[in-house]
């Protein structure tokens, strides 16, 4: 029966091969017979050697990891629009891989009995399937064929780190920027700026006859050798060096080295007598060669849509894993990763600004709060953020507020799309309470400091770790100054901050055993965030505020600064800094292992050595808590 849901399904499927080859009517009919499956993160779709189901699957939302041999080796990652579990159905054998939800996913299950007639009837579909699987028959797990199921153009970023680079097909840009031989140099430069490319292909009746790169413009026009209105024909580099589109990374690299060029033109059959299908730049080769911060930053700058950022985030996580594996110092790792994460956020903010119908009415600052503000956030966690904008006169108050709230909603949604969950307590800039003018913030903070109830202290905890992500630093400076003034005038506030800081639950029980969660999905796991990291963070904040130190929000750095300021407690502070980094590393590793925030640790998965290391940090935490409870004792303040 045709209905609203089948429409919805068809509307989605029509964008992906092989369903795009189906006649809309057939697609409708097919869509009426599918089932929609919801899978929790880590839920199994099918296991290795399991008898085949009567349907194959298309990922509608989320991601499915295909694994083999319990080795936890992810062979392939399917995301939106990808098909899996079809080959075993056609070959009539058991599943040879395990499919497991990498994140919360929605799948469409398509009965093979319904689909098969179309595959037999429709030649395009048949060809697509044959091409997908023929290459796979000998060794379905070889790296070369991994991407084949989805055509040549989709390149899974998770694989770019794989070891057999020389065999990997390279991803090239399919959006070729072209112009005719009679275009002037000036127009070409404009075109290149507009499209953000470094090379334009000159085509004559669809065939590539020359190429103009940044270098050509510099060497021929800017030098004054040719006037700016010279036509492309005269200054282009010719003939174009062409290659077939099926190139591996190594081949591309060799080709560029051989001819000493930075761009390759890819044509249908590899000669210049066929249509150009893509352009391959040195940058593309660099990207394929691996993840390094510079490449990722460049990729971010090139991202045009929020959707483009998500795969880059995945690669940042990969980079993080690599750093941890190589045992690079945590201080360095967290700096680089934070920098990259911030670059992602900044890009989302820039894109959101572009989406607004007008530029911001006044200067503003986008603040990262909580762990992000402390530059300690490395994994996908919740977003905590706020906006502070310049004071405006009463006339413009409403208007300005509305503008920034709308802008904040765009950013929050964008951040959600790239993998930062919404804050469960809605501490986000899109919440009207967290999107205020400078004076409103000053009043707000002053209120917290002068009326320190339990909530106010908690709010200050989150807010006082802010860090400027984007925008005007002067506004933030003024806010910081105002906070320090208020605190100085109200020393009693420290007492509340300290009692708040001492409230984190104890990590160990009476017999020095780990205290674990009693209920819920994390039953019997150790909460490393609340029981170990938070006490350190909270204490560092109180101490650093008492020294009126501005603009250090990272916990480890705060302890290092404290060691400098209080030489007699130097040893304790340094050990706090060390413990914090060790714990953070612990959490990060756990998070990467389970693709979550790493907050909860299954103790049985730890080695004896790791447990000892963990417990050692607890001793430091205890000493630190004693220090602050003595120092900020109410008796000392009043």
């Amino acid at each position: 029966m045709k209905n609203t849901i089948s429409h919805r399904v068809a509307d989605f499927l029509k964008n992906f091969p092989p369903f795009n080859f189906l006649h809309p009517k057939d697609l409708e009919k097919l869509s009426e017979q599918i089932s929609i499956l919801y899978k929790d993160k880590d839920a199994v779709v099918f296991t290795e050697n399991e008898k085949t189901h009567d349907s194959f699957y298309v990922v509608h939302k989320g991601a499915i990891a295909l694994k083999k041999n319990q080795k936890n080796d992810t062979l392939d990652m399917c995301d939106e629009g990808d098909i899996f579990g079809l080959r075993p159905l056609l070959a009539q054998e058991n599943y040879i891989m395990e499919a497991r939800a990498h994140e919360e996913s929605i799948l469409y299950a398509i009965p093979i009995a319904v689909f098969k007639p179309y595959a037999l009837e429709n030649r395009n579909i048949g060809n697509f399937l044959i091409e997908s699987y023929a290459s796979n028959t000998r060794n379905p797990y070889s790296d070369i064929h991994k991407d084949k199921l989805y055509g040549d153009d989709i390149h899974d970023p998770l694989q770019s780190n794989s070891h057999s680079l020389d065999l990997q097909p390279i991803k090239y840009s399919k959006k070729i920027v072209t112009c005719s031989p009679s275009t002037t140099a000036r127009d070409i430069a404009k075109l290149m700026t507009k499209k953000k490319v470094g090379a334009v292909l000159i085509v004559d009746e669809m065939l590539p006859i020359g190429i103009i790169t940044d270098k050509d413009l510099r060497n021929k026009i800017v030098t004054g050798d040719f006037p700016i209105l010279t036509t492309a024909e005269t200054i282009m580099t010719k003939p174009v060096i062409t290659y077939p589109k099926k190139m591996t990374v190594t081949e591309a690299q060799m080709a560029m080295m051989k001819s000493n060029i930075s761009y390759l033109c890819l044509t249908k059959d590899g000669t210049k007598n066929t249509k150009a299908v893509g352009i391959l730049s040195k940058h593309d080769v660099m990207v394929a060669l691996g993840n390094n911060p510079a490449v990722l930053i460049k990729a971010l700058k090139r991202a045009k849509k929020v959707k483009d950022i998500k795969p880059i985030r995945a690669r940042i996580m990969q980079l993080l894993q690599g750093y941890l594996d190589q045992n690079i110092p945590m201080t360095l790792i967290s700096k680089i990763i934070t920098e990259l994460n911030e670059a992602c956020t900044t890009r989302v903010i820039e894109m959101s600004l572009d989406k607004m119908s007008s530029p911001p009415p006044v200067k503003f600052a986008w603040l990262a709060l909580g762990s992000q503000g402390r530059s300690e956030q490395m994994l996908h966690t919740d977003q905590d953020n706020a906006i502070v904008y310049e004071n405006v006169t009463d006339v413009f108050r409403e208007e300005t507020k509305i503008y920034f709230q709308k802008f904040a909603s765009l950013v929050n949604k964008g951040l959600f799309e790239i993998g930062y969950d919404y804050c469960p307590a809605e501490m986000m800039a899109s919440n009207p309470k967290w999107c205020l003018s400078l004076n409103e913030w000053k009043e707000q903070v002053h209120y917290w400091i002068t009326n320190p109830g339990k909530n106010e202290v908690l709010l200050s905890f989150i807010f006082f770790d802010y860090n400027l992500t984007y925008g005007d630093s002067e506004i933030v400076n003024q806010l910081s100054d105002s906070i320090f003034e208020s605190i100085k005038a109200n020393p009693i506030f420290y007492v509340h901050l300290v009692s708040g800081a001492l409230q984190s639950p104890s990590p160990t029980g009476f017999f020095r055993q780990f205290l674990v969660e009693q209920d819920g999905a994390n039953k019997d796991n150790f909460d490393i965030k609340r029981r170990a990291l938070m006490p350190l963070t909270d204490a560092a904040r109180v101490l650093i505020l008492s020294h009126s130190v501005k603009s250090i929000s990272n916990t480890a750095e705060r302890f290092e600064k404290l060691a400098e300021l209080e030489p007699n407690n130097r040893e304790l502070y340094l050990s706090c800094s060390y413990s914090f980094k060790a714990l953070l590393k612990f959490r990060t590793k756990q998070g990467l292992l389970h693709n979550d925030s790493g907050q909860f640790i299954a103790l049985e998965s730890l080695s004896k050595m790791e447990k000892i290391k963990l417990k050692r940090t607890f001793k430091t935490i205890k000493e630190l808590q004693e220090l602050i409870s003595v120092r900020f004792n109410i008796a000392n303040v009043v």
Partner: protein
Amino acid sequence: MSIFSFWKKEEDLFDENITIEETRFVVLDTETTGFDYDNDRILCIGALVLQNSVISVQNSFEVYLQQDHYDKSTAQIHGILKDFIIKRPSELEALQQFLDFVGDSVIIAHHTIFDVTMINKALERNNLPQLTNPRLDTAHLYKKTLIKSHLFERKDHYTLDDLADKFDISKKDRHTALGDAYITAIAFLKIVKKLKDKKEINLNQLFK
């Protein structure tokens, strides 16, 4: 033992061995001419079956009813025009089909009380038995997933749009009965997951 029965809480609806997954849920939504239980009429009923976290497209229910009462002002919302005809059964026929479809399943909707009351009023007019199925409301269940904190003000009412935004569900077919039922179903699945993350729960606890 009688002394203990004092402590015994209200009777559980289901055998404690029945899991949430294996339960047959019917997720439904209605489009109506308005919000008046007595004067307004149902224009469309959309419903789907949710079992083992699977929704079968084939096994879903979408019926536009023949009605004399029509209110122009709500047409803007649901987009159902009076003369918009695709095989439109009478109210009686539609309700009979619907009763067959629901069976003894657990009913889920967003603001369930409205849809169920609307349907029950129609059943009454047609001398059909009332719906007595156990019911769940995603508007109510969603509130259970929210953190309890003084820092965070809950709203009194969460609309289906709020849920779709929070859970990143496409609002493409908003305000068609079956489209809304689909959004409700996905929201329900995500709510159950959230509740499970907090605390192991069973079917009976969903009703408390």
